[in-house]
């Protein structure tokens, strides 16, 4: 209702949805594009600087290794979109993987063992969600507590000893390669790609997906629009728990052993993958495509530092610096987009 042309009266319809950027261009936002460019430059650099990086073997090893992180990061993305956070994902991966492994070792059929692992992850997510929505604990505190509890349970249940000798059918889940054309693609990678597509479509196409963004963008506005904001939050924590469990089961199956120390510190990688991929910690902003690129970048940085002979003990420091850079960029981007209104 601003600055109408003089005497325009009821004519001159101004709302239009033509003259738009093409769909492919719209579907990718600035930070995704930025991070994609950085990722590609880094990959090109590594390909030229080392002769081991761009080998089929290395590429699939990397893909396999980052698939667990990426899958858990999809769930993390959903939580962060509502302006929450889930710090318990690493412990969740360990405990869910352990639950599935222990069931499998005790001769439970593999599909049921996997189901047991998924239920474990879902329960962890449910408790997180209830702590946040019912007891109104800040997500940071609630899931920090759960980080410790779930980890403690893995130690308590195993007495600190890894569960070994998992049945080969179970290990297949993480180790099987499926031939796609002439490429042996690891099963976890396929699971990751399928989940990426599903979660991405869910977030962008469904009513619940939109409500997730709305809750993160303006929770009070979502509430007065009739959205059950607490149910939406509960839903994202449960989803995050289940996705972390999928990652944890794939990881355990790949390693062939369920160690109580597994996935320790992964929560940081997972959150970093999401944030580097453009998911804003303020909520309401980010996509699964971005998370996928963020996770890939994290993994290639790790592998790349190895291949370049960067001292192992210094690597966490380098990764930390990358995370800080990404978060700084995120804040700067937010502030800029606020000021150009």
């Amino acid at each position, binding site marked *: *209702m*601003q*600055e*109408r042309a003089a005497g325009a009266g*009821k004519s001159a*319809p*101004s*709302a*239009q*949805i033509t*003259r*738009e950027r093409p769909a492919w261009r*719209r579907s990718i936002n600035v930070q995704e594009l930025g991070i994609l460019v950085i990722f590609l430059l880094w990959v090109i650099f590594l390909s030229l600087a080392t002769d081991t990086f761009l080998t089929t073997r290395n590429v699939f090893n990397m893909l396999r290794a980052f698939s667990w992180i990426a899958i858990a990061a999809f769930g993390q993305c959903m939580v962060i979109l509502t302006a929450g956070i889930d710090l318990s994902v690493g412990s969740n991966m360990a405990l869910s993987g352990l639950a599935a492994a222990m069931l499998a070792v005790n001769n439970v059929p593999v599909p049921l063992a996997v189901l047991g692992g998924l239920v474990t992850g879902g329960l962890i997510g449910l408790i997180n969600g209830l702590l946040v929505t019912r007891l109104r604990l800040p997500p940071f505190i609630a899931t920090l507590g759960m980080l410790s509890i779930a980890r403690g349970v893995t130690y308590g249940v195993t007495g600190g000893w890894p569960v070994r000798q998992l049945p080969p059918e179970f290990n297949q889940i993480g180790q099987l390669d499926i031939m796609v054309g002439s490429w042996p693609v690891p099963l976890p990678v396929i699971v990751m790609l399928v989940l990426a597509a599903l979660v991405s479509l*869910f977030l962008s*196409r*469904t*009513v*619940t997906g*939109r409500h997730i*963004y*709305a809750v*993160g*963008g*303006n929770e*009070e*506005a*979502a*509430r*007065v*629009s*009739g*959205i*059950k904001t607490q149910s939406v939050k509960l839903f994202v924590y449960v989803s995050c728990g289940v996705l972390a469990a999928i990652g944890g089961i794939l990881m355990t199956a790949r390693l062939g052993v369920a160690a109580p120390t597994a996935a320790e510190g992964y929560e940081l990688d997972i959150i970093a993958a999401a944030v580097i991929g453009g998911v804003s910690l303020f909520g*309401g*902003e980010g996509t699964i495509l971005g998370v996928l690129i963020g996770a890939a970048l994290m993994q290639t940085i790790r592998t790349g530092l190895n291949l370049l002979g960067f001292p192992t003990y210094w690597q966490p420091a380098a990764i930390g610096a990358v995370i800080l850079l990404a978060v700084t960029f995120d804040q700067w981007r937010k502030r800029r*987009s*606020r000021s*150009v*209104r």
Partner: protein
Amino acid sequence: MTATTATTPIVEMRNIKKSFGAVQALRGVDLTLMHNEVLGLVGDNAAGKSTLMKVLSGAYIPDEGEIYLEGKRVHITGPDDARRLGIEMVYQDFMLANNLDVAANIFLGREVVRWALGPIRVMDKRAMEIQSQQLLRRLNINVSSVRLKVEHLSGGQRQAVAIGRATAFNAKVIIMDEPTAALSVSAIGQVLDLIRELKAQGASIIIISHRLEDIHEVGDRVVVLRHGRKVADYPVTGDVQSFRERVVSYMVGARDDFSKVVAEED
């Protein structure tokens, strides 16, 4: 007065009380809205106007009091209840999700569903965009694209989107909390036109405004709140000047028609 006429009011709020900690925002307010009426709700800052309307829109749950819709007692336990009953509100602070686009905000909470499989409901984005576009055109709202994120809109455009959202779905009762606060003079004129048009279409409207001339122009009746109490409730008559003087005298406490001490019945 109006409450004694033969028809049942479309909205009747009785003895509404609401406190926030030690602050008694509403101390037992009665309010009626007749069918097809435009009611002006005025009062000083912090008088309780927004709070009273948020009780009606389901955003707040009152501590005490009853609400009747067309004579039937209703229990509004949340904004979704109010919306289902045909009550829409334009909030003072717009209540838009800045990270979503215009179409998404207009349809927030009642997305058009293309197909559903249990809890998975796939939206019909195209339909929502086209309908939003038509709505904005009908209301003469100048937004270059319904795919524009709300964070990129000006204050006036946001207010326009908020108004469009509340008026888009044929609500029976439309509440507007300072709908013209962020608008230019010509845009204010358009909102007043819109209110007349909505009334012509049969809606019943409550408008909160500090611009008394606007209430005088479109209002049928005015209710004045002061310190969480109703102090005046009478039809809009006469010229702007005398209307303004009378309303202000109630707002500042010089007059009070509902004081328990000076029981003035009329």
